[in-house]
């Protein structure tokens, strides 16, 4: 069981900055995120795009902002549970919470801060009628264990980097790799596109374009897929395969958090914006893009503000008897949990003779 003061759900900019504000109050944080790396949307969707409205940064690339935030919070030693999705929450008798991920990892904290942005990123599933019947029975939306496909036939659909990269990787493992894409053009890295072409020329990858998978068939396990060429139903044909891996990128979904008993409005969690961004469940806060209140703006800079007020409120919940006044970092410096200390240099006082 992982124990912490504030359990943050979501490693986007708002969740990361919350670690800093909590650290100033000597509160420890642990972050859960469904993605394998911190940064949320900024890392997953647009790491190379510039942002122009971070106060003090006339221009900063999204990926750079995440790097900076990670550096800023480093000395507060946040824990991370990455690649796992927060699934269940149980309130304990003492008012604290246990949050369990989809991998079964348990986290115990008196305060939960949901900084889930648009939700957790989950694979986009193509609208094929019987697809869900074969999930994990031949249909996989991501490759977790490539060895599973050894000496099996695999059909991959998609035209982006992950479709290209996995086609290349599995070409050496699977008995047969067929890549199906709706266009003749692929939009992945040039070297990946070139490599797929090489593998196609030597017969290690079968390329079917422009085409898409329109149906899946089988009994207990997937046995074949229907492929439509040129968007023309008359050209449909069936292809036997052991596995079908649709790779159409990720999209965010609020997911299991929607069932935690929180008040939801417009696909976001309602919070008290007059005070501390607490939800209808005391001890659970929602900050950043995941929350809503009158006048809400989904901006990183607003998330930073919300994270700061949330931490002050969390401190008062955890330490109801402690007296506290906010201190400027310029005055108090930053004392990390790792023993490091940053502070403003003392002014030199010297007389001039």
């Amino acid at each position: 069981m992982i124990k912490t003061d504030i359990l943050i759900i979501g490693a986007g900019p708002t969740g990361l900055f919350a670690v800093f504000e909590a650290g100033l109050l000597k509160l420890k944080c642990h972050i859960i995120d469904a993605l394998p790396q911190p940064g949320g949307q900024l890392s997953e969707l647009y790491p190379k795009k510039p942002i122009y409205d971070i106060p003090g940064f006339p221009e900063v690339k999204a990926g750079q902002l995440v790097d900076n935030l990670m550096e800023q919070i480093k000395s507060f030693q946040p824990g991370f549970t990455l690649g796992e999705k927060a699934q269940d929450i149980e309130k304990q008798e003492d008012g604290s919470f246990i949050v369990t991920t989809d991998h079964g990892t348990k986290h115990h904290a008196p305060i939960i801060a949901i900084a889930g942005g648009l939700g957790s990123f989950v694979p986009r599933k193509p609208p094929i009628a019987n697809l869900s019947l074969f999930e994990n029975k031949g249909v996989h939306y991501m490759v977790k264990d490539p060895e599973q496909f050894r000496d099996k036939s695999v059909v991959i659909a998609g035209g982006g980097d992950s479709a290209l990269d996995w086609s290349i990787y599995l070409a050496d493992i699977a008995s047969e790799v067929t890549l199906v894409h709706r266009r003749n053009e692929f939009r992945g890295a040039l070297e990946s596109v070139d490599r797929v072409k090489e593998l196609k020329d030597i017969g290690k990858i079968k390329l079917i374009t422009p085409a898409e998978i329109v149906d899946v068939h089988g009994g207990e396990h997937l046995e074949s897929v229907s492929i439509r060429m040129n968007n023309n139903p008359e050209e449909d044909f069936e292809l036997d395969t052991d596995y079908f891996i649709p790779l159409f990128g990720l999209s965010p979904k609020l997911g299991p958090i929607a069932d935690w008993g929180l008040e939801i409005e417009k696909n976001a969690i309602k919070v008290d914006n007059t005070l501390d961004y607490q939800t209808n469940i005391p001890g659970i806060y929602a900050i950043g893009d995941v929350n809503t209140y009158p006048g809400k703006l989904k901006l990183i800079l607003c998330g930073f503000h919300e994270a700061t007020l949330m931490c002050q409120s969390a401190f008062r919940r955890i330490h109801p008897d402690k007296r506290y006044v906010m201190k400027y970092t310029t005055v108090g410096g930053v004392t990390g949990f790792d023993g490091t200390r940053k502070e403003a240099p003392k002014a030199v006082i010297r007389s001039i003779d």
Partner: protein
Amino acid sequence: MDVKITIVDREGTSHQVDAPTDMAMNLMEVIRSYELAPEGTIGICGGMAMCASCQCYVQSNTPLPEKGDEEEAMLAEAFYVEDNSRLSCQLPITERMEGLKIEIAPSEE
């Protein structure tokens, strides 16, 4: 100056709306400003052509700007794509759009 645009929502209801040409708005933002699709189901990526949640079908012969590479690439990965599909976030509102008619594509689920 405003232009009149007809927007058919995901339930099939037609709305005629005034879209401003002087606010640097795109069609996705016009749809959101009139709340013709629930928040969180349209314009999820904020207008970067990185999701297809604002996909629409163009139903009039109104002249529109050509698709850029990013829009083409996203439409190649999107679902429910038709020949007249566009990403509404990539369509800035201009005076030439007077009389445009579009239908919002189904949301991916």
